[in-house]
């Protein structure tokens, strides 16, 4: 029998195992989105400004030597100076501290309301989409009824019914129907995901419905949810400013950007600084959230990759 010598089986050069090595660290969807977000200069600037604003709201009142509630009758309506950086208001309170304390309230309302309504909307829309059939129909009809009352009317009515306005009642008034829009779009997005194969696979493997919603539906809708949160935060801050103007917002001695601006607009001809600073903060926050939302949408949308 003919033998083939062993040396005919040596590998002649392609022994390089590095062909299977990854040249660069693997990148998942979120890392890729972050990379693309970082390339968007405008959105990054907006993000940085927002971080600064939040940091100021948290730390400025602590670091300042003034108190937001200490009145000083001898120093009313002082213009901005080295001592009072934003001047003082009609009771001689330091405007710098008040603006940042108001910012705490405004940002808290914006962030909390957006998160709460987003959470409720996701769960509601998710359940409706998952169950389908008559459950879906009834749940969506309820949403349609709630949506058919103009949003501002609901907020006003709720504030009237709930009586004294503090942070809690304001949040309740704003989120009571605020989640409906989210529920609707989450549902339609989830219906799309539901028809895909991995959901069928999960169902076949006996994963509980609750877990399918949490583990599969929500992560897959996360990108549009994040974009939606970014856009809804400023609208909640706006609603709060609107309510403050009607006298249904945060009550004194508490304050917010909306409340500061609306109380200053009567005397703005004589003391423009009292109006300018809170309005500047509102405008800056709105602008940054909007620009950041645009950036996030572009970064998270796979279609915009081309």
């Amino acid at each position, binding site marked *: 029998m003919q033998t083939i010598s062993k040396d005919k089986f040596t590998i002649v050069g392609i022994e390089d195992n590095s062909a299977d090595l990854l040249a660069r660290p693997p990148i998942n969807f979120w890392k890729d989105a972050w990379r693309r977000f970082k390339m968007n200069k405008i959105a990054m600037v907006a993000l940085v400004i927002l971080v600064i604003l939040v940091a100021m709201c948290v730390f400025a009142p602590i670091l300042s030597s003034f108190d937001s509630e200490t009145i000083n009758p001898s120093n009313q309506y002082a213009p901005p100076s080295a001592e009072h950086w934003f001047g003082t208001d009609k009771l001689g309170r330091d405007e710098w501290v008040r603006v940042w304390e108001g910012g705490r309230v405004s940002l808290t309302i914006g962030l909390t309301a957006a998160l709460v309504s987003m959470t409720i909307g996701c769960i509601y829309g998710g359940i409706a989409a998952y169950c389908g059939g008559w459950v879906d129909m009834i749940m969506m009809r309820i949403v349609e009824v709630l949506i*058919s009352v*103009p949003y501002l009317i609901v907020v006003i*009515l709720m504030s009237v019914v709930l009586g004294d306005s503090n942070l809690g009642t304001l949040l309740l008034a704003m989120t009571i129907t605020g989640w409906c829009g989210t529920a609707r779009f989450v549902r339609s997005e989830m219906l799309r995901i539901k028809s895909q194969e991995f959901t069928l696979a999960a169902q076949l493997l006996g994963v509980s419905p609750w877990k399918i919603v949490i583990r599969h539906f929500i992560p897959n809708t996360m990108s549009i949810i994040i974009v939606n949160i970014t856009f809804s935060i400023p609208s909640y801050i706006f609603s709060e*400013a*609107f309510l403050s103007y009607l006298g249904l917002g945060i009550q004194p001695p508490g304050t917010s950007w909306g409340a500061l601006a609306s109380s200053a607009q009567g005397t703005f*001809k004589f003391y423009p600084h009292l*109006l300018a600073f809170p*309005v500047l903060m509102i405008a800056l926050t709105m602008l940054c959230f*909007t620009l950041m939302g645009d950036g996030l949408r572009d970064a998270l949308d796979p279609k915009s990759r081309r």
Partner: protein
Amino acid sequence: MGKYILKRTLFAIVTLVAVITVTFFMMRSIPGDPLAGMARALPEETKQAFMAKYGLDKPLFEQYLIYLKGVFLEFDLGESLRYAGRPVMKTIAETSPISGMVGGIGLIIGCFLGCCMGILAALQKNKWPDYVVMFIAILGTTLPSFVIITLCQWIFGVVLKVLPPSGWGTWQHMVLPISIGAFGTIATYARYVKASMLDTLDQDYVLTARAKGLSESKIILKHVLRNAMTPAVTIFASSVVGVFTGAFLSERMFAIPGIGFYYVSSINNNDYTMVLGTTVFYAILFIVMQLLLDIIYTLIDPRVRVK
């Protein structure tokens, strides 16, 4: 089609009843009686006479049925608690045309200009017209409306002295409220239409049209515009109600005797029948608008009809 309209109408009525029910019981659940805000010490008989006059002494559910009957059969929304002898319906009938006129003109101008600007911005993307339009849109969406109103009143009414800062009566009084209303609408529509245009320009059928050598103007006019404008119809319902709700601020600040003005003052006066009645009016308006737009939408977008 007829079946669809019937189904939608029936659902609108159900929605309306639900809204009235919820609003009614919410308003009745407010602690304290409506008299509390007006006078401190009234004789017991006076109070009872008052309660009897407005039917507040009856059981809650009976009151509710009476109210429902009033709304649907007699178009009666009750009588103002604050101003005796002034039916809510009459106040609405007198004041809503004013709001409707100011807001309506603003809405039409705003929609038209906003759509034009949105189209322009999309076609001239990343050129100066785009930047100008987006600047206007951002200005309109980042400043609270009461600040815009205050600034405009100051600039045009106090510094330039060309327009009265507030009041009602002549056409000069209408210029500022209409312009500011239009400005807000422009901001919303310019953004929305631009996004919709860009989305449509990206579609494959536009690529096909380009590939087969259609002229650019034909592509825009025939293929892009119609498809891009249909989504704008969907936000029109909320814009119409926005005319009335946006009026809460502008009517108060400009002292225009419109429905928003009375709605806000009735909130401050604890005039519950007025608040309830106006809310029901807003809800009816919104539901009817949505119904109409749903029907219009099926007419202009054949794809919706197939379902």
